[in-house]
């Protein structure tokens, strides 16, 4: 039987010697292929006696199995080596920089973001968003809001005017968002709950004033809402907006022609350096004006002030944005310096919500 043993030894050493899958396949064909050396031996079985065939056949088949197993093992080794060589060949420098893509480049302006934050908070309290034109009439901007003609309160508004029309009337750029109070009360019946964000204009420009700025106004008109409700709404808003557990407020009597009683509101804060922390400390910071809607304003909108009542407030969007996010200079809001916008702006998908948090 030494011929079979030596054949097997010869084949197995050829398997070991195969350097790649192609030469291994050649070895396989030479041994186990149709005309291979092992296959040829199996063909000799037909001429043997049954006893001889049994023993000889078993021996050849064992050799065949061992050869096949060796080939399979060698093939696995070669395959793994080939893969490793390929992987080594394909290695890239992963430290090369990639482009960040548009989502990383784009920004939302802080004013838009803060308007979205304000909207999220007030929507939860049942407030809709009302808007109105920037170019207004004297009637909506002043008269209907109970500013008497020639009253000093008008002069304090530093109004931008257009040239008089043929009838002598002058249009103007709204000096506050309050005209939309009138437009809202004229177009819908109480109960009314709206906030009114928008651009406002005053002929004023210095370190802390820009000729264009943003205000948000609030208006509630129904049969029951009083100053205690106003206090609650503003305190809840301030807590939610500044994302603090509690705020201290101080309501000081003041004067606005369109509210009576009128108040200015200070919020408790702590100043450290240039930073102002709302909700801490013992300092006060004036933050908004408010009051009960003046009976004349309610009347000017065709409602009976003995039947309907409500409150309104207004504050600077730019200003509360500066307070919350620490921008030092109002003028930079409108300069469109991409460095400022990238630094203070918000990412496109930073959509404020109450369920996910205003600032995530």
């Amino acid at each position: 039987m030494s011929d079979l043993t030596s054949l097997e030894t010869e084949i197995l050493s050829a398997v070991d010697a195969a350097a790649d899958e192609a030469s291994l396949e050649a070895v396989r064909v030479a041994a186990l292929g149709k005309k291979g050396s092992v296959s040829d031996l199996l063909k000799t079985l037909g001429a043997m006696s049954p006893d001889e065939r049994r023993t000889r056949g078993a021996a050849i088949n064992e050799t065949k199995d061992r050869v096949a197993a060796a080939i399979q093992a060698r093939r696995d080794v070669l395959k793994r080596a080939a893969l490793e060589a390929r992987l080594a060949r394909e290695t890239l420098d992963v430290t090369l920089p990639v482009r960040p893509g548009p989502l990383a480049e784009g920004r939302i302006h802080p004013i838009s973001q803060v308007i979205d934050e304000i909207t999220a908070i007030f929507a939860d309290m049942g407030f809709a968003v009302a808007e109105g034109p920037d170019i207004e009439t004297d009637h909506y901007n002043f008269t209907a809001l109970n500013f008497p003609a020639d009253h000093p309160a008008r002069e304090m508004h530093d109004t931008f005017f257009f040239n008089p029309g043929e009838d002598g009337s002058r249009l103007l750029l709204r000096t506050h968002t309050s005209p939309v109070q009138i437009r809202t009360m004229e177009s819908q019946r109480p109960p009314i709950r709206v906030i009114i964000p928008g651009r406002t204009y005053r002929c004023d420009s210095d370190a802390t004033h820009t000729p264009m700025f943003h205000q948000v106004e609030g208006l509630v008109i129904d049969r029951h809402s009083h100053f205690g409700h106003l206090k609650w709404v503003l305190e809840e808003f301030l807590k939610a907006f500044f994302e603090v557990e509690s705020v201290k407020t101080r309501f000081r009597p003041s004067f606005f022609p369109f509210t009576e009683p009128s108040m200015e509101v200070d919020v408790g804060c702590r100043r450290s350096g240039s930073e102002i922390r709302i909700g801490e400390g013992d300092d006060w910071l004036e933050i908004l004006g408010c009051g009960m809607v003046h009976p004349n304003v309610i009347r000017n909108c065709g409602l009976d002030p003995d039947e309907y009542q409500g409150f309104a407030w207004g504050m600077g969007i730019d200003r509360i944005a500066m307070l919350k996010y620490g921008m030092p200079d109002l003028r930079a809001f409108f300069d469109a310096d991409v460095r400022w916008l990238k630094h203070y702006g918000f990412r496109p998908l930073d959509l404020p919500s109450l369920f996910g948090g205003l600032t995530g």
Partner: protein
Amino acid sequence: MKFTLSWLKDHLDTEASLDDVVEALTMIGLEVEAVTDPGAALKAFRIAKVLTADKHPNADKLRLLSVDAGLGEPVQVVCGAPNARAGLVGVFASPGTVIPSSGEALAVGTIRGVESRGMMCSERELLLSDEHTGIIELPEDAPVGVSFADYRGGSDPVIEIAITPNRPDCLGVRGIARDLAARGLGRLKPDPVEMIPGSFPNPIPVELRFTEETASACPVFAARVVKGVRNGPSPQWMQDRLKAIGLRPISALVDITNYVSYDRGRPLHVYDAAKITGTLHARLGREGESFVALDGRTYAVDAEACVIADDAGVLGFGGIMGGEASGSTEATTDVLIESAWFDPNRTARTGRRFGINSDARYRFERGVDPAFVLAGLELATRMVMDLCGGEPSEAIMAGQPPISVKVIDFPLSEVKRLSGLDLPATEITATLEALGFEVSGFGDARTVTVPSWRPDVEGKADLVEEVVRIVGLDRVKTTPLPRLQSVGAKVLTPIQIRTRRAKRTLAARGLVEAVTWSFVKKTEAELFGGGAPALALANPISADMSDMRPSLIPGLAAAVRRNVARGFDDVALFEVGQVFAGTRPEDQFTAATAVRRGTSGLVGAGRHWAGTAEAVGVYDAKADALALLDQLGFDVARAQVARGAPSWFHPGRSGTIQLGPQTVLGWFGELHPAVLDSLDVAGPIVAAEILLERIPLPKDKGSRTKPPLAASDLMPVVRDFAFVVDDGVEAARIVKAALGAAKPLVTDVSVFDVYRGEHVGAGRKSVAIAVTLTPTDRTLTEDDIEAVSKSVVAAVAKATGATLRG
């Protein structure tokens, strides 16, 4: 409005501390803006006596003083004042003391070789006056060693409060004291005004010369002459108070008018009676008249202004500013005191027209107490007699004070209705009475009479304010606003939703949001189709911000220019905001505008190892425009893209997105090179602008259910075609023809190659399209596909004259 604490205490009997007063003022609506104590700066200065005054060994004009400042040892001081002499008692500053005029601490100095351990001060060095010719000389018995601040009468803090336009009564110290007394900070001192009998008839007649229509300009004019006065400087206490509140003492007569103005909110005027010709009268001005006012300027009056005149002409503006010629001087011996009442609106208009701001105008335009006309005259007369001597005439009065008694029906329940604060009736009425209101009636229904000095109080809400501001707004309990529904409903309108989506979409495309001014330069407005006279501001803050913007592009282009100037060449900015086609509300639109410059395309700008970005072009702008429409819920397949856009775009590299010629949604393209030149910004700049209101609202189908997905189980088949057409043929026509060639089998057509060159000939191009066929009921056979291909070729050929590329 400024006053000092001691001045307040003339009217308010109180033990309250300065801090309590300040806190109370703010909490009742008289917001304290500043508290300053000029005396505090003088605390460290001591009264000192010059013991000896010898010649300085090395300087003729300097003296070597030995000063007793009560410090035990005499101090050596070098002094250059001409009045420095032995025996003089003055004010001494020791080293380390901060000198008010310089704001710096005094150091030990060596002057011409001699040490000086302090300084004898002049009034100017202490900011007491401009006097600097010599050092302060105090009476010889002034106590040496005592603090100069204490010697001068202790400190008298100056309180500055912001007075809202509705509170003219608090433009006098007495009104402020009344508010504080109502708050419980003390007692308002009784202050009856003494009636002064005249000893002779008033020698100068006084008249009101108005028509019935114009009589409101000055309904009352009271006056009297005091003869034989001596008009020197006013006494020190009055000068101190006036200086403390920032007024310059002038002479006793003038100082008295200023003092009464601040003490009682009652403006007065004094004339030199000798300079009045004939009848003193109030009337409207006449064109051609003019006068020189106390500010030294000449004013040509007009027929709207209320003036005071005599028979020789106009003397001054009533209630605003008197004239120089008729004013009192040091030489005045007979003075005429005027106490009148001028219409607030006319006073405001006149003051504004002539640009005069005066304490008198400030008070009259807000409303001076009409019931205090005569009392003011009596008060001033008393002070003139006390300070300047003289003999008063009888007082005369032309017209009548315009006193209208306002009575308000005031159910006490109004306080709770508007403020939520439940107060006992007695507290409400006591508060109102303390402020000078008279309350009558019983139970809930009360009647309130408004005092003459409160023109602002007109109705119930005003009374509620008076009550709650005095009892304290902090007493109102915070009350939750009831929810209107249990789950919040959608609150935004379609335009508001579009505005927000537009911003997030453009930011997600790598653009940075800018907020630019709503007004632009006139030339820029004109370049972008605006600049109409109706949209130009009458009083722009600068020529660069003169006209309402017709488009967001000029503002964004200017922003690009600024960024380029800072070294940032590849800028991608957007804005969503208002643009103005006219002045009516319906002419205001919301534009969403994207601007890209340099290489700032969607994938990123600038050079990169994996592929350097190309310069932006019309297709970048088109992509922004269509992405925007898509994200706003508009089916972009419905949009027509027409060649060309308004004049500010490059005519060959721009397009208009429209539903039809009448409904333009927006534009995109490269900005016109000439426009870039005018804007002084280097290109390339591309822009896309969509008007959000123009996008049709989707129909409300009443259901949120989407139609079922019709996805075929059969494999789609893609066939490519290359057509050769004239260069001017738009690709969209080929695509449209192919899409329509075999409906519904053809489901998509895309353009995958455009080629120009020698293979297709000059003036021609090859456009390669991939046509997707989606079978619905059975697999397509080669014959089916062949038939569809033929109809595609035929349709494209018919629509565009194309031939298949061989």
